[in-house]
């Protein structure tokens, strides 16, 4: 929906101004990032805070996939959840790789995540896992900024939809 009162030329101008503000934001962020990198030079292999979220997403996806065979009636929703959590893991992995720098060669992990051992998963367990994934992604988004905060917020919202609408 667009407001009637802004003529097209105005809107283009606004867009440019918006972009200018965005680049100010990105500039500020870049500075912050540089400072942060400088501080952690002697701790180069410190774990990226996104990594636990990647592992969670892969395990959620594996749990949903394992449930498809057990609950054929919910197969469509479970398959969607598995696909979305895999997409979440892939996007976060790409962001971790980008942050580490293009010089470091990056091999996407093709390992199958281990399901929590023991009995086959239940729908209730998946629901609880996804609710926790929603909370953890939101908590992390709150203390990060820029793209990282944004993508985690979208992931958190997707998990909310998975538990409250899909399942």
């Amino acid at each position, binding site marked *: *929906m667009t407001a009637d009162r802004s003529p097209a030329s105005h809107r283009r101008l606004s867009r440019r101004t*918006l972009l200018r503000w965005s680049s100010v934001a990105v500039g500020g962020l870049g500075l912050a990032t540089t400072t942060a990198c400088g501080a952690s030079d002697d701790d180069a292999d410190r774990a990226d805070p996104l990594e636990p979220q990647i592992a969670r997403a892969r395990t959620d996806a594996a749990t949903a996939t394992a449930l498809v065979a057990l609950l054929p009636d919910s197969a469509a929703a479970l398959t969607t959840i598995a696909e*979305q959590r895999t997409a979440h893991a892939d996007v976060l992995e790409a962001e971790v790789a980008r942050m580490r720098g293009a010089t470091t060669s990056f091999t996407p992990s093709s390992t199958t995540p281990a399901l929590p051992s023991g009995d086959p998963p239940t729908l209730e367990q998946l629901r609880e896992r996804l609710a926790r994934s929603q909370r953890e992604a*939101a908590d992390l988004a709150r203390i990060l900024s820029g793209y990282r905060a944004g993508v985690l917020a979208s992931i958190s919202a997707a998990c909310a939809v998975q538990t409250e609408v899909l399942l």
Partner: protein
Amino acid sequence: MSTPGLGPEQQSLVDALAAEHAAVFGYGIVAAFADPWADAVAEDTAAHRARRDATIEALHAASVEPPVAAPGYTVPFPVTDPDSAARLAEQIENDTAVAWRSVVERAHSESTRGAAITALTEAALRAARWRVRLGAPPSLPFPGQP
């Protein structure tokens, strides 16, 4: 709409408020045609009014004059029946989700980010429920991602 002199967080809140004004207007059109889902329309409209008012308060608190609603809005396609009304509702939710994701990315304060994450999540849930009513695949992997 961009206002000179605003920082990125304030500008993102001004943009989100514009999206919420548009949402309140748009749900008025949805209400005229979405008879089968009158309860959902009432609930969603109330949610957008509450979010709009909270955003106005947040801007006041930041000493920013909140923009008022436009006198009219262009609806992206003709709304003539429950189906097209539901599609408009879904689009409104997607638009507000995009606006709130942008606030998450541009906010400096944790409290603004927290509020924006909640607003994004609520819009994603409403969008998904409208898709269910439309018989469409209910969800997107990254709600609010433009």
